[in-house]
């Protein structure tokens, strides 16, 4: 089948109005970058789920990171996209600049958490604090970091974790938002978890769950399969990314997560607390824990903020009064969907302005 035929099919779709959710923020970005919405019928509406671990991170986590970054003898390692997430005393980016109190925030942007090992070995007097955010995709890398630190006897590393698991969040959405007709499942989470994690959801809610890669062609193929399933009255799990996603995922990675982390409750900005959706260092690795539990306190989102409704696709970004009134912008964001360059409000904003 040619890509042009798939596009034709999706463009001329004239059945009932459909609402499909792409769970993953990287999918949201790819859909935007490739202009996918422009290639499909307006009767197939794509909505963005909460699939960005960075932007659902609560304020208390950011505050903890700022505290470490300013503590004598500490250096904070973080992914670049954490820099502008607001904390109660400003974002990491703002605090990196705030030197007047005398405490200079020591922040280094990392490409990989594993960089902490070499740094820690070279500078034993500095404690390297890793701002450990991510979903199932990234959790095994942090697990390797801990294993490696233990193996080499490196002690001057701490993790402040805000690790989340996408599957419990997906279940929460299915339970709380029943007008979604199908899900484009996160490809790189699925690399780790495998495809069977969606079986129970597909069976229980009778909806298509299709695993997709991140090229425009992958995404169009996944949307096509979801639409075809719906037309045939089906609700099955399909793997349209078999080149990377195995049925059972990556067993070594799953084992690494299980060895090092234990599930616990986690707060998702905009959604609230979801039991079992967080990962925390197990007791036997607690020497590496920089105090990750209980970082639940989140900023009081302004009264008008409708993040939760945007994330679950109940409203479009421009129906949120904060967005419409211009008080929530990519330069001065409040909610998760505006903080992330992959959040639906951020994307919507850049499209309209």
């Amino acid at each position, binding site marked *: *089948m*040619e*890509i042009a035929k*798939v596009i034709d099919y999706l463009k001329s779709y004239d059945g009932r109005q459909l609402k499909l959710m792409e*769970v*993953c*923020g*990287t*999918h949201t970005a790819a859909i935007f970058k490739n202009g996918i919405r422009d290639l499909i019928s307006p009767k197939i509406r794509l909505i963005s789920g909460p*699939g*960005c*671990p960075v932007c659902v991170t609560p304020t208390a986590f950011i505050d903890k990171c700022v505290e470490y970054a300013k503590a004598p003898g500490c250096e904070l390692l973080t*992914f670049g996209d954490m820099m502008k997430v607001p904390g109660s005393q400003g974002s990491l980016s703002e605090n990196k600049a705030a030197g007047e109190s005398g405490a200079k925030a020591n922040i280094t942007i990392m*490409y*990989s*958490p*594993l*960089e902490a090992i070499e740094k820690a070995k070279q500078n034993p007097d500095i404690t390297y604090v890793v701002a450990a955010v*991510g*979903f199932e*995709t*990234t959790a*095994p*890398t942090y697990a*390797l970091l801990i294993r490696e630190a233990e193996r080499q006897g490196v002690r001057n590393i701490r993790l402040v974790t805000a690790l989340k698991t*996408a599957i419990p969040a997906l279940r929460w959405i299915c339970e709380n938002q029943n007008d979604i007709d199908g899900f484009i499942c*996160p490809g*790189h*989470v699925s*690399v*780790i978890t495998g495809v069977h994690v969606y079986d129970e959801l597909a069976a229980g809610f009778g909806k298509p769950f299709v695993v997709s*890669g991140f*090229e425009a*062609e*992958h995404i169009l*193929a996944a949307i*096509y*399969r979801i639409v*075809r399933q719906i037309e045939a009255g089906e609700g099955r799990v399909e793997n*349209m990314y*078999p*080149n*990377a*996603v*195995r049925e059972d995922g*990556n067993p*070594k*990675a799953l084992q*690494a997560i299980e060895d090092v982390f234990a599930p616990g409750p986690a707060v998702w900005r905009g959604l609230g607390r979801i039991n079992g959706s967080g990962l925390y260092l197990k007791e036997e690795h607690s020497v590496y824990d920089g105090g990750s539990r209980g970082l639940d306190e989140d900023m009081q989102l302004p009264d008008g903020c409708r993040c939760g409704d945007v994330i679950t696709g109940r409203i479009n970004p421009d129906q949120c009064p904060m967005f419409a009134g211009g008080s929530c912008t990519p330069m001065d964001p409040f909610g998760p969907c505006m903080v992330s360059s992959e959040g639906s409000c951020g994307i919507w904003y850049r499209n309209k302005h």
Partner: protein
Amino acid sequence: MCVAIPGRVTEVDGTTAKVDFNGNSVNVNVGLVDPKVGQYVLVHAGCAIEVMEKEQAQEIIDLFADLEAMA
């Protein structure tokens, strides 16, 4: 949810490998996979999370062939 891209393994040394992305060489941890030189691995945050069976261009061709078969 996460950026991960395929690269070709050029050297393996224990749990570390050199992976090439169009002429950019990066040291990657391969503790979660077991790749051979010449294979493509999917790399996320400095860590290979899976061995890819095919090169990406071929994969897309095959994907659409499968789509035909399903239709």
